[in-house]
């Protein structure tokens, strides 16, 4: 019914540029450096001082982005983030050599967009990720149909990923059984998204996604306190976390963006609902405001609230009563029940006036992320962009 209405709004038509341009042309490039400073405690960490170990972590993340046009129908974007991580919790896994104290990770993600017709676009996404102890490849394809003179779009996507872990450390036991050299996990996801222009200054978007994972879904260095006193200040042992073999996730999300020309302000409101078969239910609300202070600069601020329930097998103190060595168990603080609050502010400046070729932009932003279960992250970032 809704799709029929969208079609009734007019014939799907958009102007097609007839010009053809030869050769590859770089159109846009960005670099960004982001620093994450995390403090907190979680029962899955053995980094001390107590059963709730330190989650102290610092991440240095340079990122690069380039968009180039192959011809009038094909363009590519390449995104390369690199993580340099110093972590307290992973140190417990390799306490002798501390080789895991520092972890480097890199990703390359390529998007290829093909304008098949005036109203049909295909988007291919593919890439890989590598770090000290695991590697990953991923890929996907999406199709977008423009409707009602580009006033509405509908997009469908399918994505997949495959990860493999190499044997890691002698403690507490190899995450991969000695009989196998590697362990694996994979995932498939699909999504549908619609967008609609409501006015020259209003855009709305809605989407649904589903994702299925199978394989080794645990985090290898996480552990679960076992046979502890009621205060969980002393424990008999720690066991490695265990996860079910599969996981099914679903999300529903929406976006409303409104520009106010009189004050040169843009207000955005986003909502996301998440549910999975681990009994996690989560609501996320994000409000953003962008205020142009001059034609060449804006400041923005945002607030995000996130509320989630815990996975059904979360615990901080595994006891003997009804103990099942093969049952799922985790103390991962990321999978606990909590509220998360985030606020941030950003300043962007167009070094050259917008709309002109060879436009330079520079921006800085700061975010503060806190969780009610004792975790906080300060994020600082600086970025530079160039439009050719």
């Amino acid at each position, binding site marked *: *019914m*809704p799709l029929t209405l969208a079609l009734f709004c007019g014939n799907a038509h958009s*102007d097609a540029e007839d010009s053809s341009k030869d050769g590859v042309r770089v159109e846009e490039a*960005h670099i960004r450096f982001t620093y994450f400073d995390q403090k907190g405690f979680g029962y899955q960490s053995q980094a001390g001082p107590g059963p709730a170990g330190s989650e102290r972590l610092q991440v240095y*993340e340079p990122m690069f*982005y380039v968009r180039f046009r192959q011809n009038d129908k094909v363009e590519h974007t390449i*995104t390369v*983030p690199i993580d340099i991580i110093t972590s307290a919790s992973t140190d417990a896994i390799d306490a002798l050599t501390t080789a895991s104290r520092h972890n480097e990770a890199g990703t390359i993600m390529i998007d290829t967009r093909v304008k098949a017709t005036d109203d049909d676009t295909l988007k291919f996404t593919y890439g890989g*990720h590598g770090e000290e102890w*695991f590697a*990953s490849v*991923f890929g996907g394809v999406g199709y977008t149909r423009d409707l*009602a003179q580009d*006033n509405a779009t509908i997009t469908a996507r399918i*994505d*997949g*990923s495959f990860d493999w872990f190499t044997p890691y450390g002698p403690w507490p036991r190899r995450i991969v059984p000695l009989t196998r050299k590697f362990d694996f996990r*994979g*995932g*498939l*996801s699909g*999504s549908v*998204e*619609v967008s609609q222009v*409501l006015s*020259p*200054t209003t855009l*709305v978007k*809605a989407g649904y*996604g589903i*994702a299925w*994972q199978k394989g080794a*879904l645990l985090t*290898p260095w*996480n552990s679960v306190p076992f046979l502890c006193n009621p205060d969980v200040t002393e424990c008999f042992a720690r066991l490695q976390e265990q996860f079910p073999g599969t996981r099914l996730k*679903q*999300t*529903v999300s929406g976006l409303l*963006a409104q*520009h106010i*020309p009189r004050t040169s302000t843009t207000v955005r409101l986003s909502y996301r*609902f*998440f*549910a*999975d078969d*681990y009994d*996690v239910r989560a609501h996320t609300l994000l409000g953003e405001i*962008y205020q142009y202070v001059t034609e060449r600069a*804006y400041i*923005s601020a945002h607030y995000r609230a*996130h509320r*989630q329930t815990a*996975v059904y097998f979360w615990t901080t103190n595994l006891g003997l009563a009804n103990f099942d060595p093969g049952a799922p168990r985790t103390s991962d603080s*990321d*999978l606990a029940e909590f509220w998360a609050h985030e606020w941030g502010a950003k300043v962007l400046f167009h070094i050259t006036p917008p709309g002109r070729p060879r436009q330079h932009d520079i921006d800085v*932003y700061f*975010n503060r992320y806190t969780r009610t279960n004792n*975790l906080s*992250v300060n994020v600082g970032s600086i*970025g530079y962009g160039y439009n050719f």
Partner: protein
Amino acid sequence: MRGLFLTWVAVVLCSGCVRVGPYERGYLSDATMQPVVDPLEAFATTHLHRAREATSGGIWSPAGGGCGCSN
């Protein structure tokens, strides 16, 4: 959840057969009105949330991969 999604989609698509012509799209083409305002900033922010919450996957991101966490 399916009902919530279908209701939201119906609201989106039934909000009027508005025809905004190409000459009226100046404000819609502004960077702050794009689905993703800054791709690298969005990547960094999503990375933070994906690694610190139990709710990654589904729309706008592949499930699993790229993170050594169980989320």
